[in-house]
């Protein structure tokens, strides 16, 4: 019973944050409500016993990625978004479509599934088991993601650097 209450509490915060992301017009408000969503999702992971993932969710998602977003918003001095004709068409067609699809999926899941409950509060996703999987069964994908991260870092540096600065660097290399 307590687990259900906790699930509903954090789920409500999660959905409220996601809806707030949609209705806010300033990007910084959207970013802050996305942090709320990610924090409450970490609590949901903890309820499901995934303690390692809850920590990673807070550190990587709510920490690193959202800091990147907030810094970019600050750097670009992003203001309120202006509404345009295209966005009104998207609202008229998109909102009913997504709502109908969501209700259909929810109804199917709630009424036509015979899946049992999830045992929660059993903290079985410990770092030890994950590390054993990650460095044994998934060793090749793990190494490939390290290469991916390296490429992403270099790509981010190249894309975000000013063209003049990059050209100056190239000249310096030649000379």
């Amino acid at each position, binding site marked *: 019973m307590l*687990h*259900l209450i906790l699930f509903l509490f954090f*789920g409500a915060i*999660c*959905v409220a944050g*996601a809806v707030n*992301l949609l209705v806010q017009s300033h*990007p910084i408000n*959207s*970013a802050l409500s*996305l942090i709320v*969503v*990610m924090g409450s*999702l970490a609590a*949901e*992971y903890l*309820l*499901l016993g*995934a303690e390692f*993932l809850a920590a990673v*969710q807070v550190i*990587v*998602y709510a920490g690193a*990625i959202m800091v*990147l*977003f907030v810094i*970019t918003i600050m750097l*670009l001095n*992003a203001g309120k*978004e*202006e*509404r*345009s004709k*295209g*966005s009104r068409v*998207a*609202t008229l067609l*998109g*909102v009913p479509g997504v709502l109908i*699809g*969501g209700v259909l*999926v929810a109804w199917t*899941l*709630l009424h036509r599934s015979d*899946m*049992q409950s*999830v045992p*929660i509060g059993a903290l079985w*996703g410990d770092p030890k088991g*994950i590390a054993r*999987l*990650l460095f044994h069964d998934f060793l090749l994908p793990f190494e490939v*993601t390290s290469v*991916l*991260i390296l490429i*992403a870092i270099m*790509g*981010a540096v190249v*894309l*975000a650097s000013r063209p003049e600065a990059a050209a100056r660097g190239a000249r310096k290399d030649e000379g």
Partner: protein
Amino acid sequence: MVPLSYYLVLSGILFACGVLGFLIKRNIITIFMSIELMLNGVNLSFVAFAARWHALSGQVFVFFVMVVAAAEAAVGLAIIIAVYRTRETLNVDQVNLLKL
């Protein structure tokens, strides 16, 4: 005990909110945040299924999704900065030319 379908419904709601934000938002940074919201919704269903079948590999997949999302956020935000530098707008409706 919480039914598995509750978790899936919550994950579906988050994904639907992400799709909706992708459709109705005009600010490129907010659109990018909607994509992150969709990834989070998918992650929740991964963790719920992993808890249901006691399969730790589901959590490893979530870990990989997070890694790819971090790389994607770094590159995507760099692209947004480059777009802003050349066009001086964040509105996707005004970013409609391949070449300036």
